[in-house]
């Protein structure tokens, strides 16, 4: 499946990780080169500001560098890295919730958000504004990052079955929320009567 961010060629990632483990810092630079963009985008689409996304991307790589000796190669490196980034983002967002002064709170989204979903460009914005965080994350990891159910389960820290169910529910919820064209609605009504 094509990914939104263009997943890097994974052929040499295992070698790079092994080199880093044996003390080659330059190989980690290469890993940064391969994954920084993807991690940054993942954080941005979750709704972080550009500045926060940059900071958390940097922190995530630093944590990954420190913990790379503990990285289990049976999982994809990207999965492990996204797991770190997601935890960092969640932790950051929790802190933000506690510290945002009232005057800095963003305006609540208004009902026109349904219009966002009606065109392709606004679809993800609509998803982010209308689905909960878990639903958004699983959809993004699947469609934006092209991850397998197993990898999504790993990043989300849930079972594979749960990740599958979460994706189905997210899609179904989105289907209910998205505005339908008149023709679609009519055909749906007709077919439902037949069933």
């Amino acid at each position, binding site marked *: 499946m094509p990914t939104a961010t263009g997943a890097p060629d994974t052929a040499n990632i295992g070698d790079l990780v092994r080199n880093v483990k044996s003390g080659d810092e330059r190989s980690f630079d290469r890993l*940064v080169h391969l994954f920084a963009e993807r991690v940054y985008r993942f954080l941005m689409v979750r709704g972080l500001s550009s500045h926060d996304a*940059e900071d958390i*991307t940097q922190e995530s790589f630093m944590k990954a560098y420190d913990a790379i000796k503990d990285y289990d190669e049976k999982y994809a490196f990207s999965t492990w890295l996204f797991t770190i980034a997601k935890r960092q983002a969640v932790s950051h967002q929790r802190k933000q919730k506690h510290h945002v002064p009232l005057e800095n709170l963003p305006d609540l989204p208004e009902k026109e958000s349904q219009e966002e979903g009606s065109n392709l460009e606004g*679809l993800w914005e609509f998803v982010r504004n209308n689905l909960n965080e878990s639903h958004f994350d699983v959809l993004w990891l699947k469609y934006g990052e092209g991850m397998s159910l197993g990898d999504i389960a790993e990043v989300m820290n849930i079972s594979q079955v749960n990740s599958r169910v979460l994706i189905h529910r997210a899609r179904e919820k989105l289907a209910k929320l998205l505005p339908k064209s008149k023709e679609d609605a009519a055909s749906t009504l007709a077919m439902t009567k037949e069933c």
Partner: protein
Amino acid sequence: MDCNKAIDEINRVIDEGLPLEESLSNHLRTCGKCSDYYMEMQSIDEKLAASATSFAPRAPEGLEARIISAIGNRNSRKPEPEKITHFPFHYGRFAAAACFILLTMGASFLVWQHKTEVEKQNSAKQLAELKEIFTDLANVNKKAGEANEEKPIDSALYAPLENEVSKLTEDTKAAGRFFIRFIPFSSTENRKG
């Protein structure tokens, strides 16, 4: 195939990109609700995949360089430490304690050795004195025997000696008792003879 099973299968087909199985195809032909669900899910699947690229913002210029530089800077500031910084801190106190114990033990040993040496010297001195006393005693006995075999030995002769003996320590007296066995009391022999 019932609708619940069909919905599960539809999601599996979409998630794993599998072809429709015959049983599911047959169900979709006869069930408008499931057919609609399939089309709807497929449409959402396609839209989500297609619009993800345009939604993902690009990373700012220099992000990778910034990360690499931050890690490099931190690593260069990182002291080798474990060995250099922490070793003296953790082990210094143990080393100091060990030195203190060794010094105390050494000093105690020297004091003990000195004391033993002094005691040895004192004992030797006292033993020499005792030997003299008993030699005198033997001589007194001898003289007394020679002078008057029948008369008891004059206790006044022993008085100064007893006085001397009372000053001795118990250890020295014990040594004296041991020593006295080997002093030939010629006076006694003379008396017997």
